[in-house]
């Protein structure tokens, strides 16, 4: 079963009518994933015996629909690795809130998708389980860290997948793969069961070809949870209610920092075309400034790495996961397990974060970064006083070649310059396809950011653009035989 021409609604309809059988669908989906993954390696684990809910109630839009889960989200009884050697065999004994909610909505959990190790990376190349290839061009990266989820959706392996986004990890791969992806407001979706990278920035979100499919899934996974103290108790609106609207009178901000010369020409042109489209349809376009944009990369890498250094210290080879075999004493168990269990990028960030928090450095680095973060939040608050959404590119470029940036961390980090701010400010942000770049022929993502808990406007604009260009009709070129 391939999903390139399906939506959650179409599947729901076929299942309801008996044209599809949910159990058979799960099997066919797993089979197709196996086949497609020979080319793109989007999954770490495919559950060939995926449990299909009993007594399917097709009022649940997700009933019987196979969904893929990024492998840093806990699935009870199903291996969860965070794409790290140190958790290569970890079988969780409890359930994450988002998966519990999907199961309650009778979705089928079909497997776990590849990613950068512990979500640290922008290309899915830091995975212990090998690279994922971009379905549009198998020589290119799918982006990251949710590169597996993005490629799985783009190739039609699944109709929708969960991702996580700490500094752009949903939006950038969505952009590179020509699909939709939304990082909701921090606190909109419970993090219970999300293997922590940077706790104050991590947020679970949804990726799908069609905007409406993500709205359907977000409807299920969003909302209060008494296991996560940072999740909001705010009521969850029906996100599909924001679709099908026009943009007349909508106040759209375009930050000048997001349309600078650093943005590759093909990307800039595709994004500008969408801004023009909004304007032609009655939106009010305001050029604004987010003056602290130039500080976001260092600020982000200090805060995220600091939190990560604490979050990853628990992996010691004792209670779960990988344990080095030839350790001679307890100290060696710790040192060898961690040395062999973590990849280079993870180690780099643990070192960076440990330093930023250390006694002599805390004031100069962590505290300073925390102050800049406050300024970044203020930048956004100011813009949202007079605007409904902020738009621009997701990334300065389209998908780059495999192995082209992995040895240059600074270049890789700079990939995130346009996505990090939304995590810093905790606001919702999405990537919707703007078309193919005239210079590279690869998909370009159009970023839409909303005010806190205003996913509604983000969906509204994304859906408007989707209807204007019907990008979902284009098939990824890399999979054609």
């Amino acid at each position, binding site marked *: 079963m391939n999903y390139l021409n399906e939506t959650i609604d179409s599947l729901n309809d076929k299942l309801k009518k008996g044209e599809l059988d949910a159990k058979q669908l799960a099997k066919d989906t797993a089979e197709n994933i196996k086949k497609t993954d020979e080319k793109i390696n989007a999954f770490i684990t495919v559950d060939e015996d995926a449990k299909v809910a009993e007594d399917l109630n097709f009022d649940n839009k997700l009933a019987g629909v196979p969904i893929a889960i990024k492998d840093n989200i806990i699935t009870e009884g199903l291996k969860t690795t965070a794409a790290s050697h140190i958790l290569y065999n970890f079988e969780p004994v*409890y359930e994450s809130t988002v998966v519990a909610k999907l199961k309650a909505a009778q979705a089928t959990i079909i497997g776990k998708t590849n990613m950068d190790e512990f979500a640290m990376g922008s290309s899915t190349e830091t995975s212990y389980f090998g690279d994922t290839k971009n379905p549009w061009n198998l020589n290119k990266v799918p982006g990251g860290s949710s590169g597996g989820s993005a490629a799985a959706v783009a190739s039609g392996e699944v109709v929708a997948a969960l991702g996580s986004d700490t500094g752009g990890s949903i939006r950038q791969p969505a952009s590179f793969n020509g699909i939709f992806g939304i990082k909701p407001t921090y606190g909109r979706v419970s993090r219970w069961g999300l293997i*922590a990278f940077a706790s104050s920035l991590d947020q679970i979100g949804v990726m799908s070809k069609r905007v409406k499919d993500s709205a359907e899934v977000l409807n299920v996974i969003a909302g209060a949870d*008494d*296991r996560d103290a940072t999740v909001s108790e705010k009521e969850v609106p029906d996100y599909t209610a924001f679709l099908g609207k026009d943009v007349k009178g909508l106040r759209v901000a375009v930050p000048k920092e997001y349309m600078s010369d650093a943005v590759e020409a093909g990307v800039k042109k595709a994004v500008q075309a969408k801004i023009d489209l909004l304007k032609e349809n009655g939106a009010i376009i305001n050029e604004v400034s987010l003056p602290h944009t130039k500080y976001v990369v260092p600020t982000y890498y200090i805060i995220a790495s600091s939190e990560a250094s*604490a979050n990853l*210290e628990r992996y010691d080879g004792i209670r779960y996961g990988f344990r080095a075999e030839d350790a001679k004493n307890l100290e060696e168990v710790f040192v060898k397990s961690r040395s062999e269990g973590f990849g280079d990028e993870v180690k780099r960030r643990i070192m960076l974060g440990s330093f930023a928090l250390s006694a002599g450095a805390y004031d100069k680095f962590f505290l300073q970064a925390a102050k800049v973060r406050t300024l970044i939040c203020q930048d956004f608050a100011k813009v949202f006083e007079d605007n409904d959404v902020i738009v621009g590119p997701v990334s300065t470029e389209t998908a780059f070649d495999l192995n082209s940036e992995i040895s240059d961390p600074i270049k890789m980090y700079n990939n995130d310059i346009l996505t990090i701010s939304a995590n810093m400010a905790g606001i919702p942000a999405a990537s919707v396809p703007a078309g193919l770049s005239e210079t590279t022929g690869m998909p370009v993502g159009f970023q839409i950011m909303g005010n806190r808990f205003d996913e509604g406007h983000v969906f509204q604009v994304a859906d408007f653009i989707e209807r204007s260009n019907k990008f979902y009709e284009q098939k990824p070129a890399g999979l054609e035989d």
Partner: protein
Amino acid sequence: MNFKSTIGLEVHFELKTKSKIFSPSPVTYGAKPNTETNVIDWGYPGTLPMVNKEVYRLGLMVALATHSHVNPVTHFDRKNYFYPDNPKAYQITQFFKPLAENGYVEVEVHGQKKKIHIHEMHIEEDAGKNTHGTNGFSYVDYNRQGVPLLEVVSEPEMTDPDEAVAYLEKLREIVQFTGASDVKMEEGSMRIDTNISIRPAGQKEFGTKVEMKNLNSFEHVRLSLAYEQKRQEQILLSGGRVQISTRRFDTNTGKTVLERVKEGDADYRYFPEPDLAPYHIKKEWVDEIAANLPKTADERRDIYVNEYGLKPYDANVLLQSKESSDFFDKAVAAGADPKQAANWMNTQVNGYLNENHAELKDIALTPENLAAMIKLISDGTISSKIAKKVFAETVANGTDPKKYVEENGMAQLSDESVLTPMVKEVVDNNPQSVEDFKNGKDRAIGFLVGQIMKQTRGKANPKVINKLLLADLNAR
């Protein structure tokens, strides 16, 4: 040369909650290892802490009882250190914004009253417990992981071991009477770390600090500090330098032993806990807690001595624990004469507890039953001799004293209309005793009382008989 000591104390109290500070696992002292744990306590990937609000409430009680300033906004921080008893490799504590600051307790030492100031108090999670087996393996029990702690940090302003112990006694009493902690050192619900430095009198700068961790009793605190004072003095007098170090008190030799030398402060890389938002403590809530604080030991002592007329010693025995003081208060509230109740509590009840190695909460005796028994004595229904039998039954089986006395015919015969004819008969039958009485021999009365007791098989109320006898004899 004269030296001046500077002593600071850090005291951890386990807060008495039903469940842990950040997880729903229950907290029971003495449970089988690792039976009271869950994925949060194990530090499993993807788990998150949720604050047990009761921890704030109990902490605030202690803050208020020590006149501390409650921070209107408090938050948790991560203290990073790697150790097998610490499954997340960080402890969630409060470093930047503790629950409360700038409090004090008032102590009396060497006949002088002194305020000892509290620098700050914060709430945090306890770590697991490592034990080292004789089989070469080490074991970790995570039952204790996540037990809520309140750490109370004094200002370093105590100047001798007696002052330190006086502070500890007062602090324990205050915390105990809020009900926030069991304060049992033997169960680890109160733990003491000390630090001490000395300097020549007149020198402004503090001397080098030496720390001692996990002292087992107040006496050990006193002895170890006294030993350190001397040890450090001798080092300074011989021209040496005190090392920044942690030392252990050896209870066998009465000496302190070097554990480890510190090379600068450990770097815990503290930073705000991102999984828990800052907590705003509403003034109304603080006011409500303040209004409902249980009476302090001092307030109770005042009532016991000045209102009930108890001797200060007896009052202090009752106030050794909140349980005994509460028990006594309830007995008095149920109608017991306070002096009698105090007497029974401090002799018979305590005796029974010691004999059976039990605590008040474990035994069948209720304050109501104790009060009922004391009332039976006061109104003459039973003699104090019978009372001992009644007590033995009630304390062992929880039997209602009144019912027990009735069912077993143990009530004294005090009815004058029954006793008067008996008295008359005995006096009539013993003219010699009447004669002796008239001749001033008081012994005669004892003989006559004995005769009546014999007839009533000991149940006659001696007071009533005495009264009736005297009346009869004087009338002859």
